[in-house]
């Protein structure tokens, strides 16, 4: 018996035996079970969206609070930077926003933030 013969015979026997089984109709039952299952699953999903939104808000609030409480030194630097780069009138308005720095003291100003002295106008080379 060749492999093809055996495969063909196996296929034929399985089909012939299976054809003798006549399944009962259960379409309505299956549809009802499926609806019941879906109805059970739906309420869980309805809770999922508000719960996710609430978790997101809490996470956002925690992040904002964390940044505002741990980043105390950042406003000082910011105020100092603004005090240096802006005119005195503007510094007076900016300084009160920094909560822990009463006066804008330019202590830690990086060198690249220092205002450069005005460069003289470039002179044209004398004509030959």
């Amino acid at each position: 018996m060749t492999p093809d013969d055996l495969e063909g015979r196996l296929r034929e026997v399985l089909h012939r035996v299976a054809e003798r089984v006549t399944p009962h109709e259960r379409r309505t039952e299956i549809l009802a079970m499926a609806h019941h299952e879906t109805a059970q699953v739906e309420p869980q999903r309805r809770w999922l969206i508000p719960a996710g939104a609430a978790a997101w808000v809490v996470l956002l609030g925690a992040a904002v609070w964390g940044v505002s409480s741990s980043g105390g030194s950042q406003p000082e630097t910011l105020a100092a930077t603004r005090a240096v780069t802006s005119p005195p009138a503007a510094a007076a308005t900016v300084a009160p926003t920094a909560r822990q720095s009463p006066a804008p003291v330019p202590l830690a100003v990086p060198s690249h933030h220092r205002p450069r002295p005005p460069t003289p106008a470039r002179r044209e080379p004398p004509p030959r």
Partner: protein
Amino acid sequence: MTAAQGEDTGSADTMWVPDQALTDLYAVSWHSLVRLSWLLVRDQQLAEERVPDAFVAMSSHWSRQQNRDLALAYLRRCVVNSSHSVLRHRRVEGRYLSSQTSAMTAQGSTKEPSAQARALQSAGGARLLAALGHLPPRQWQVLTPRYYLDLSQSQTADAVSISAGSVKTHTHRGLTALRSDVEGTS
């Protein structure tokens, strides 16, 4: 119409409305899936209990089965898996019973053959089916869906949840064992 022809109808891009899709899938695959399950567990009542569970499981995962081919593959996988668990349970039960009194075992062996067993014998090819039943479970579980539903190697691998290479190996070994069994007894 063969089981495979019945399952292959319909395109993959049809509109996917759950109730309509479920009805279509039922019309296309109910008979072949119950028969497949029956071929694996050899019990019509059990087969008819298992297949609806597969449909219900599929209906609760609509988002993953966006077309008919995927849904059919999912159904096949569910049916084969649940049939496997029936067989596993039956084996455990059999081992337990065989470890009990020998009187009970003797009673079991003298039991009258069921109507389904008689139907199997009268359907012809009883020797081949008996040889199929003597194969190791995995080979039998690979050969049955593959040749009943005319599945490809990869489709069988998906249905039985093993790799395509394992399907090839089990098919080869199973066919070799079947051949030697059938030729030895004839």
